[in-house]
């Protein structure tokens, strides 16, 4: 009996470690494949270079770094207020019946494959932007709109849980002071739920920065630093996905190096966000 217990423990430890090991191996692999490119191009040159032309051995990914940032920021501008507003409505104002219908519907959005979002963006948003705002239509704006919708399920359900976790006595205490529902939400419920809402925003940001397929289909993917919301844009993830199929030699290594940069950026963002959340909780 005791031996069996021991065996189960060892087995579970191994299983637990295996996921960490897989992560470690992935990191190791990306770095191993990517680091030679840094050595050859020069780290600074690689990160700040504004021209990406593998045929001419011009390997600068600043346009893609800028692209990822601007598209993610745009997605957050679209998705955060919408998602938070939706979560507040569901948690504080909707009747139980309405919430029981609406919340699963929103969560269903998460189950739609990203290529479908891309397709909708491609056939509806891109022509719309081209006709009404000008430019090619394939743009930062189209990417931000598509991604903004894609991060809604994350934003809504995580901030909804944060709002529901606020003790009901806070609302009661406010209403007993003669507050309206909205005053109670604004003055007490939202401040109480802030760490959870920040966590929702972080998760949503991670989703946006990592998304590839939908963005490829609506972003236009040209390797220039966008100067307007109507300019086409290429993100770090798109860069890898678009070219990995045919890349060889230094070009291939440079794509892995793009992955390294993406990995570092996401780690820094996550870390900062975590520190912010912890700071606000205290």
């Amino acid at each position, binding site marked *: 009996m005791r031996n069996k217990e021991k065996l189960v423990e060892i087995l579970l430890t191994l299983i637990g470690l295996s996921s960490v090991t897989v992560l470690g191996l992935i990191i190791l692999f990306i770095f191993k494949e990517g680091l030679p490119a840094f050595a050859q191009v020069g780290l600074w040159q690689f990160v700040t270079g504004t021209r990406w032309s593998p045929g001419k051995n011009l390997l600068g990914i600043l346009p893609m770094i800028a692209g990822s940032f601007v598209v993610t920021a745009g997605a957050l501008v679209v998705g955060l207020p919408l998602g938070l507003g939706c979560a507040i409505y569901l948690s504080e104002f909707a009747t139980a019946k309405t919430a029981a219908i609406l919340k699963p519907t929103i969560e269903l959005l998460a189950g739609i494959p990203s290529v479908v979002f891309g397709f909708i963006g491609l056939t509806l948003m891109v022509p719309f932007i081209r006709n009404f705002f000008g430019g090619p239509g394939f743009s930062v704006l189209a990417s931000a709109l598509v991604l903004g919708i894609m991060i809604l399920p994350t934003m809504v359900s995580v901030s909804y849980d944060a709002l529901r976790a606020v003790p009901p*006595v*806070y609302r*009661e*205490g*406010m*209403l*007993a*002071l*003669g*507050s*309206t529902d909205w*005053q109670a939400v604004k*003055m*007490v419920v939202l*401040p*109480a739920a802030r760490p959870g809402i920040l966590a929702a925003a972080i998760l949503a940001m991670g989703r946006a920065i990592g998304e590839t397929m939908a963005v490829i289909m609506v972003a236009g993917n040209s390797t220039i630093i966008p100067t307007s919301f109507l300019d086409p844009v290429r993100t770090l993830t798109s860069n890898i996905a678009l070219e990995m199929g045919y890349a060889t030699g230094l070009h291939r290594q440079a794509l892995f190096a793009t992955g390294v940069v993406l990995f570092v950026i996401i780690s820094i963002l996550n870390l900062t966000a975590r520190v912010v959340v912890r700071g606000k909780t205290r």
Partner: protein
Amino acid sequence: MFAGKAAKIELREFELYYGDFRVLKKVSAAFAANAVTAIIGPSGCGKSTLLRSINRMNDLIEGVRVTGEIRLDGKNIYDPDVDLIWLRARIGMVFQRPVAFPLSIFDNVAAAPRVRGILSHKELVPIVETSLKAVGLWPEVKDRLGQAASSLSLGDQQKLSIARAIATQPDVVLFDEPCSALDPIATHTIEDLMQSLSEHYTIIIVTHNMQQAARASDFTMFMLDGNIVEYSPTRELFTNPKDTRTENYITGKLG
């Protein structure tokens, strides 16, 4: 019975239903101004429901229906033209567990005037100070108003809740078992505080603690199954109960 004190609140054949269940049965009684009235009775007798009917907190519960009247200075608070914000500004409430909002000490008290649209810091400061002084918390917190209210002890958090309740300058303050989460020392301070506050406010307290009612109130109402069994000056009710059910309850044979 009130020995010269005016009636501030008057219930007239007040009934309350949860769905089909009648919680309060044709309750008629008055509460004296500037006195502490305790409502006692076993769990489920309707004492908390009665208290929450006075500031209409029961409105928040689905399926609640009322008949009869509750008059505040002669005005029926269940009239359709009554503004709940007005009503709850005149009738403050302190809950069983201290409600310390996840905000600073200052903002916890300032929440009350802010709800009524008083937003300028200049106007808020004296209100917060007066309220904290009235509950005796001022000397302790005046140098750390910006700190989180959750850093206070439970007893002090309850004082803070009382300060917030009186920051709207109400006439009436309702206490719903305000000491059940507190230790004996904090309980005594809150009881003393209720007595001193009754100079300016009409105070009604629901408690399951008979000693508390005996110590801290001027009048006591004993309820059972949604009815008032006995209601008299506190000393009289505890020393010379007229109803055998009251006697059984206060001697511990019932409930």
